[in-house]
């Protein structure tokens, strides 16, 4: 039996429409690229939206310096293969310039620090639209997000005063200095993204598939012990485990899950049967119930 793909097709058509609105309504858009599955999906959608022309905007990676090496290798290869322009801005530079202070302790992460580097880069390049791979099903505050989400001169999100979005009509009118965050895959679920990756046969970094890794346990989550950026107490025992990552952020805030899913088909099956949400493995969201909302207000993407 042929797989029914009508649902994923309609999401794809919607996302392509949004990509084209961005290219048409803004002078200087950029696609925020983290190397994760959602931003890889965005790149695929952008390629499709403008074929046979090239994607009419660059990619930008806000590099925390704490990325999984597999992600960075993958990023560089993708950009080369597709002939895309990539801008990289480093959180380390913001730290060196004294704009942000590195966190310390066992829960230290550079995730929060990204916001400053991102806002500086938006100002530096005068980007008026930033395309991101956030989805409404990820998190409660994101469920309130618009497809075109206006940010003020300080990059801030005023969640209580959002523009209504009706039908397909996207209003991208902004004042000089403001910018719009655009979320073409707002209506996709985690499972939709994985199904699309499977259907389109999209290549993704190897850490999304099961592999053996030196890990340790903390707060019921599995952490990578390979790298010094992940803080580990002496008494936290390192063990080899077969794991994969469901979401790929900073090494310091992304936990692994036990999994034998070594190919895309079994990954899709695993997601379908999972009883834990995707962000359940993101320690940055567990800081407080409103962690994401607070970060978004400050300009986090």
């Amino acid at each position, binding site marked *: 039996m042929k797989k029914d793909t009508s*649902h994923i097709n309609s999401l794809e058509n919607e996302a392509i*429409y949004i990509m084209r609105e961005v290219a048409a309504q803004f002078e200087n858009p950029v696609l925020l690229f983290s190397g994760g599955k959602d931003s890889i999906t965005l790149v695929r959608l952008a390629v499709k939206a403008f074929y046979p022309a090239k994607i009419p905007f660059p990619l930008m990676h806000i590099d925390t310096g704490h990325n999984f090496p597999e992600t960075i290798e993958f990023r560089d290869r993708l950009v080369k293969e597709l002939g895309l322009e990539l801008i990289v801005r480093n959180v380390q530079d913001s730290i060196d310039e004294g704009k942000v202070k590195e966190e310390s302790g066992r829960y230290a992460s550079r995730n929060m620090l990204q916001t400053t580097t991102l806002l500086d880069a938006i100002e530096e390049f005068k980007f008026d639209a930033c395309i991101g791979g956030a989805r409404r099903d990820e998190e*409660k505050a994101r469920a309130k997000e618009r497809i075109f989400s206006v940010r003020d001169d300080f990059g801030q999100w005023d969640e209580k005063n959002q523009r209504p979005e009706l039908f397909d009509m996207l209003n991208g009118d902004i004042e000089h200095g403001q910018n719009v965050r655009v979320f073409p895959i707002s209506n996709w679920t985690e499972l939709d993204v994985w199904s699309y990756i499977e259907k389109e046969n999209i290549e993704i970094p190897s850490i999304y598939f099961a592999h053996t890794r030196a890990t340790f346990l903390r707060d019921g989550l599995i952490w990578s012990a390979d790298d010094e950026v992940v803080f580990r107490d002496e008494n936290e025992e390192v063990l080899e485990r077969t794991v994969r990552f469901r979401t790929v952020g900073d090494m310091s805030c992304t936990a692994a899950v036990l999994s034998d899913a070594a190919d895309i088909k079994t990954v899709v099956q695993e997601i379908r049967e999972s009883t834990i949400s995707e962000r359940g493995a993101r320690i940055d969201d567990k800081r407080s119930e409103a962690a994401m909302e607070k970060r978004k207000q400050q300009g986090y993407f």
Partner: protein
Amino acid sequence: MEVLKIATAGSVDDGKSTLIGRILYDTKSLTTDKLEAIEKTSKQRGYDYLDFSLATDGLVAEREQGITIDVAHIYFSTAKKSYIIADTPGHVEYTRNMVTGASTSQASIILIDARKGVIEQTNRHFFINNLLRIKDVVVAINKMDLVDYSEDVYNKIKADFEALMSKRDYQDQKITFIPVSALKGDNVVNKTDKMPWYKGETLLEHLEKIDKADIFNIGTPRFPVQYVIRPKTEEFHDFRGYAGKVYGGNLSVGDDIVVLPSQTKSKIKDIYFYDEKYETASRRSSVTITLEDDINVSRGDMIVKENDLPTIEKQFTANVCWMDSTQLTAGKKYVVQHGINKVLAKVDAIHHKINPDYSGIEEDVNGLGMNDIASVSFKLNKPVFYDAFKNHRTNGSFIIIDSQSNNTVGAGFIQ
């Protein structure tokens, strides 16, 4: 798999968020970590039940005040369908939020508190659902547990609502009444034994049976050109593709078409979706079209079939839902965004205000305030290509943008 988009409507405290949380819980759509968070917070607050509204009220202020402030989108699936629920707030900015949520929905759920019955807000919710021509409306009479699951209460509310139905404009709208308790889970996903007098479906059973009533499946093909694709590469040196989304009907290779506003005629040469060519572009697909003739087409133009033109005018009259705290008055200028096309518009006349509680119209109106609905005429600085909303959902609607604040301040449905 089918997708059903549903909007919810109800007044403050009617239990919308609780209902949605209940659906998520009973369909086992809440993941363990989310459920644990709800259990923890419910316990902290000293509740002796699980507060499912915590599953959807995402903003700090919402959780503090126990109300929904902004439209939230919730996703879940059953074996049969994928669902997207737009959870719309019931307080002050209800018209704005409801119109927003309902604009992309195929079905809607109107909640009524069984203790309060049909109140003025109910009239408004129904009016807006009818104005937006939502095909399938469920009237969920909630909190039945607080009225001893009384059949008389249910029948009384049903009769009151039916009185409203006779006044509606869009008579083909299908309406279904279901008595529920979102808190206890009666008739939401699972049948209850508390109301043996009710023989109908549970809420989810009903939703599962709704046909794929495609709300956009009305009218004839309209292809607004979003973006012109000119690769200028060696391989595609002379390629000129028109990217856009097909609305209303299909377009096929060889179709005789007209480009608006120039009224230039041509034929569809190729239809691309990414690197593949197709014979037909179906409704809602984002394709790229090339034409037989080398003519000038740019963003904002519209490609339509030769024998099937929309109205081409520099004015229109529409039912307008006003969503801003500033007043709309005659003579004021705005930007009207019709599809992707932006034009300057001047308010020519406010004909009358429509009372969304079905109490009639008000004439001699000077201005419109937040939540007002009125019949308004606009003069435009250039022609737009439109259909009446009842014939074409996409090509018959527009938004109004305040050029000073850049905010979307209203929505219109062309008459």
